[in-house]
């Protein structure tokens, strides 16, 4: 009886201890002392998790009931043993040990001093602290840039898309003749660039993108994102200083956040995820039995959800919310504005989703996880290669628990440990509706992110884990606030140690992030080097009157980024495989059917697309061009690329017929004809039109289809362009 009483009194602590131990085992895996060179603390995390489960279940079994609350202090205290393990020294950790332990100790010490001196964080001080912190982080980013535009991986592609949107919105998708003989510029929908465009459109229109892009990135990461997190915390009615804490946690959420934002340049994803906390907080109100939506929040929800959905995979994050809304249908139906919100969302989103589904081959992509057999010839002298080709970043596979746990641990290692350990108690501290919304969404995203990656590798679902950590900032902020409140109102050794420990990690994290932004971490990101402008100038000077083709396969050879925005830095049309990141394995720009014919095939392809200069960066192609001095003359050499001008050709954009090109712009080709019929050396698409002409497809070969024009008037300007979006949606 006495034991039962003791256990009953400490049930909350015991259950918390068991849960925290499970979390520790789950995120840490096999664990060693200090820096990994020391003794093993445990070699089998599953055993530790099992012990945690036993400890968790024991009081439940004895008392035959669940404790009403969890003790957040117990969870916080697990950060102390974490300090002594090798977890902080593992690669891709946000807190880059071993030196980070110094910062944790220092700030824990200062936190303790603050408690001792009873320093109160007034609203003025809170605001100043957060403002200064964000300024410092932004300063680290700009300092690392040294005035150069960020050019890492997809950032140049995103710059190109923004420029396209700036020049063409709302007439998207459209035909762009600038790349590869003409492309369907449609990936605004799939990549989420629309949300970023809308949010920052005043600045995008007001300033040239080349000069403003870094500022836009900084605004997104250090103002918009923490601002949204602050707003979400206010919507969720977290008391001060929890919204400020949430804002700081947001900018220190995970190393992978900055990987996706700065290294990979997936700005559509970042913008969408920035808004998700607001969406989930509003969902919490919708699900709450007591709260109602205000008109402002209703309008905000429409925009917020729409902008989030522009990055289409964010739909995964809405699934639990939709299911819960259906489960609590009556309650949701009686909420003010709920029906209006749904109607508005459908009215705004159905048109563009329809366009997206039509133009983007979404269903094929979603089912495209299988390896495909393809034939390609990598170099002029190589034999054809056949076989399975890796299509995506992840390989396809089935459910695998061990791999799922490993994937979860990889992501957890990169996350702020406060989020890992304080999420569970934090969820229990939220209001019921908010708890349901955040809890269900986090659980769903964690499951999807860890388990479904190999099933659908093309969707890169490991990002769902990152989204889960972002959303966790809200409950964790509330947990931290309660910890400090407990320390202030009922100071004890336990609460003081817990609060001081949390303070150490909380204030140390921004410095680690400053290092990441300063490019002093394992996640390196890149800015445009001199070669970008040098290459653009050289193409302008030596490109000739036709197109410039990049031989071989180009991925990140240009200053660690893609070639995409080069078309805006020169007046030439370019060709490359690929100017965007749509290929995961080597794929030659020249199709296999032409490569098989060796030199003749290569020349034929170059003639077909009116290529007047080629750019080589691979030795076999350089050697090929150098071995044919009668056809290719080297005219420029940079650190990576070399330009060869074609000799002995008569450039023309007309395969058949006669005419002249008057201008080639971002979304159209203006030309005039001296004959009624012609074949233009531009790729054919069914949504193209030329007023006054009959447009059809000219099949040159299996892979090349050009534009045939018939019955055209002569000697007047004609325009090859895409039909308007509505016509394309319904009629083409």
């Amino acid at each position: 009886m006495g034991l039962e009483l003791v256990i009953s009194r400490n049930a909350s602590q015991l259950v918390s201890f068991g849960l925290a131990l499970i979390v520790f085992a789950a995120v840490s895996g096999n664990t060693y002392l200090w820096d990994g060179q020391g003794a093993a603390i445990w070699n089998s995390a599953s055993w530790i998790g099992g012990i945690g489960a036993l400890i968790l279940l024991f009081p439940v079994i004895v008392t035959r009931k669940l404790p009403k609350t969890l003790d957040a202090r117990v969870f916080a205290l697990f950060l102390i043993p974490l300090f002594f393990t090798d977890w902080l020294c593992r690669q891709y950790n946000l807190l880059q040990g071993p030196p980070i332990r110094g910062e944790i100790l220092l700030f824990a010490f200062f936190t303790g001093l603050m408690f001792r001196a009873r320093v109160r964080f007034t609203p003025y001080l809170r605001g100043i602290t957060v403002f200064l912190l964000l300024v410092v982080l932004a300063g680290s980013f700009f300092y690392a840039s040294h005035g150069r535009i960020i050019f890492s991986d997809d950032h140049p592609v995103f710059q190109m898309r923004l420029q396209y949107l700036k020049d063409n919105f709302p007439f998207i998708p459209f035909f762009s003749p600038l790349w590869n003989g003409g492309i369907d510029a449609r990936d605004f929908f799939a990549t989420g660039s629309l949300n970023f465009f809308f949010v920052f459109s005043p600045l995008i229109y007001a300033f040239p993108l080349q000069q403003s892009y870094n500022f836009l990135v900084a605004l997104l990461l250090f103002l918009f994102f923490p601002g949204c997190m602050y707003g979400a915390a206010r919507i969720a009615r977290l008391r001060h200083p929890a919204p400020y804490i949430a804002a700081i946690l947001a900018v220190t959420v995970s190393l992978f956040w900055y990987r996706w934002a700065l290294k990979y340049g997936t700005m559509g994803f970042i913008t969408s995820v920035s808004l998700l906390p607001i969406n989930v907080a509003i969902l919490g109100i919708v699900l709450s039995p007591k709260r109602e939506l205000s008109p402002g929040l209703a309008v905000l929800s429409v925009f917020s959800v729409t902008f989030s959905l522009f990055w289409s995979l964010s739909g995964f994050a809405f699934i639990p919310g939709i299911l819960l809304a259906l489960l609590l249908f009556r309650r949701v139906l009686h909420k003010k504005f709920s029906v209006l919100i749904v109607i508005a969302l459908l009215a705004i989103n159905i048109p563009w989703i329809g366009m997206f589904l039509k133009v983007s081959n979404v269903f094929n992509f979603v089912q495209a996880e299988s390896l495909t057999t393809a034939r390609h010839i990598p170099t002029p002298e190589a034999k054809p290669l056949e076989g399975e080709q890796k299509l995506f970043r992840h390989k396809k596979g089935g459910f695998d628990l061990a791999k799922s746990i490993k994937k979860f641990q990889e992501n957890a290692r990169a996350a702020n440990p406060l989020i890992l350990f304080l999420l569970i108690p934090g969820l229990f501290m939220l209001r019921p509706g908010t708890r349901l919304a955040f809890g269900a969404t986090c659980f769903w995203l964690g499951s999807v992110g860890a388990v479904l990656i190999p099933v659908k590798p093309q969707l890169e679902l490991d990002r769902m884990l990152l989204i889960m950590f972002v959303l966790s900032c809200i409950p964790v902020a509330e947990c931290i606030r309660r910890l400090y409140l407990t320390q202030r109102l009922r100071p004890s050794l336990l609460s003081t140690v817990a609060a001081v420990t949390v303070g150490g990690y909380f204030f140390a994290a921004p410095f680690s992030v400053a290092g990441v932004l300063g490019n002093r971490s394992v996640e390196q990101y890149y800015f445009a080097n001199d070669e970008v402008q040098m290459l653009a100038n050289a193409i302008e000077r030596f490109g000739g009157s036709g197109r410039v083709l990049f031989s071989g396969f180009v991925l990140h050879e240009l200053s660690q980024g893609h070639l995409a925005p080069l078309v805006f830095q020169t007046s030439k049309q370019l060709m490359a495989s690929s100017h965007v990141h749509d290929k995961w394995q080597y794929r030659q720009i020249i199709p296999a059917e032409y490569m098989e014919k060796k030199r003749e095939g290569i020349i034929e392809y170059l003639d077909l697309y009116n290529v007047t200069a080629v750019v080589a960066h691979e030795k076999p192609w350089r050697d090929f061009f150098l071995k044919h001095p009668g056809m290719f003359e080297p005219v420029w050499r940079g650190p990576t690329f070399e330009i060869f001008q074609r000799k002995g050709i008569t450039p023309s954009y007309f395969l058949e017929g006669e005419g002249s090109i008057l201008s080639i712009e971002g979304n159209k080709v203006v030309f005039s004809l001296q004959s009624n019929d012609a074949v233009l050396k531009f790729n054919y698409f069914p949504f193209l039109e030329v007023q006054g002409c009959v447009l059809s497809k000219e099949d040159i070969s299996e892979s090349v289809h050009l534009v045939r024009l018939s019955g055209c008037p002569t000697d007047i300007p004609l325009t090859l362009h895409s039909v308007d979006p509505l016509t394309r949606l319904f009629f083409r």
Partner: protein
Amino acid sequence: MESSQHSAQKFIPLILTIALLGFAFSLSIGEANLFSPSDGKALLVSHLYHNAFFPFQGEPILSFLGMKTEMWWTFLVLFSVGCVALRAQLFPEEEKVTQIGMGSAMGVGIAIIFRDETILLHSVLWLPYLFACGLRVYSPEKSFGSLGQWIWIGLLALFSWRLSNAAGVCAAPFAVLAALFLVWIRPGHRSLLPIFAVVLPAVAVLLAFPEPPWPHYPPFAQIIRNLEASEIIRPLIGFAPGLPCVDRSAVFTLTALPALLLFLLSLISCIIDRERLRSVAGGFSLFLTGAVLIDVWLPYGARIIGPLATFERILPLAGLFPLATVAVPVSLIFLLSRAPCLSGSLCTLLVVLGSFFAPKPLSLDATRIPYASPSAELYSVYGEAQLSHMKEALVSSVESPAEYVLQATASRHEEQLHFLFDGVLKSRWGVPADERSREDFVSVQLKESKSISGVVLELGPYQTDFPKGLRVRTSENCELPSENWEIAIEETPWVGNVGFTKEGAPYWLNTQEIRLVFTEEKMVRCFQIELTKPQKFFDWSIGELRLLISE
């Protein structure tokens, strides 16, 4: 009787001061020994004696007053006046004579400890003034908001600006220290404005601080590729620039004994007088000396998580100079500023005497200092001439000898040798780990003699399969036994490829490519690459073999 004893006690500090001044004079400390950073190799090997950066910025106030800023005496007098002012704020009830005597003793004592380190003395020159102003501004007796208070706040900002300017790279730590000082002494209800008056000038100075003329080493340039040396710090976080390390032995020499002595003195004084512990001076003195002890006495693993190493990482530019050497005199200022007359004088004497017997870092041979910079080790391994060759070799053309190879042989797996010349990095010649030995080699005979400046072994995807030691022999006469061929280059251990910053400073690079640059160009008909030291667990692989041809 009592009054005569009291009078005698009053003069003790004066007597001590005169004695110290006499000591200093007798040592003929005259012109200041200013050390400014210079360009060239010296900067790349070591700076001062511990790879630090601390330029002398000049002192416009002194120049304005017509005082020569190079004169050690100038600093001594000005600093002593500051100490007197600080003392006056801390002990307003103390007699003026004692204040002057003790203040002078503090000033002279610290100046003697610094001796040739005039730049360091200059860095703390305005610190006593700053503290004195802070005490004045936050004095409980004085009302806030009057014109006089605004003048004092203005002076606070002025001294903060001068202190930051003089402290240079230590501006941020001093600003933090001063801000903490003000927070500690601030009466609860008082304005935070004086704290901003201290911090903002420091921020302005830091923003305008010229970028140190340090080679721009890439973030992951390492001193020793395998990190065999444990004293290398790569500050990866915060604002610290990518500096490799500070010469810890020199820091230890300078600060270990003074820090220990001061820590013991602080501890004893705090134990004797509990009020001292609660005072800002006692607390800061104990904290600073304790931090210095952690920094210099504890092993690497503990030191890098100590307070000073942490501040060096997270405060702007603070990693450019070892804070321990600055923390010692600052802690002495704190210790002495609150000390009663007699014990303070004794402390000063003790510390000054101790400094005379401590070894002098300047006597260390700078070129023998290990790990002074990422470049130092390379200079000692390769020498300047060879590094110059390596730098020139970067612009040499790298050719595959496929077209002029007559034959190739190897110790093992000769059937794979053609992969060395097929232009495909994924295919390799390799010796598995369990077969490797020091007799392994690859030998190539060319169709005709060729002038080459080195060989390049590209590992491709086999980055872990690099050797730990290699030797290249060459000859124009392939009939001779290979052991009689000339050794063109031998690198044992081979630690990594050598890269060069844009300023020309060498550093260790990755292991994707092994670039063996001969000491001079050679006419070669045949060459042999010999494994002199294999790795423990990995194969020895070569993806592609190329030659360095000078242009």
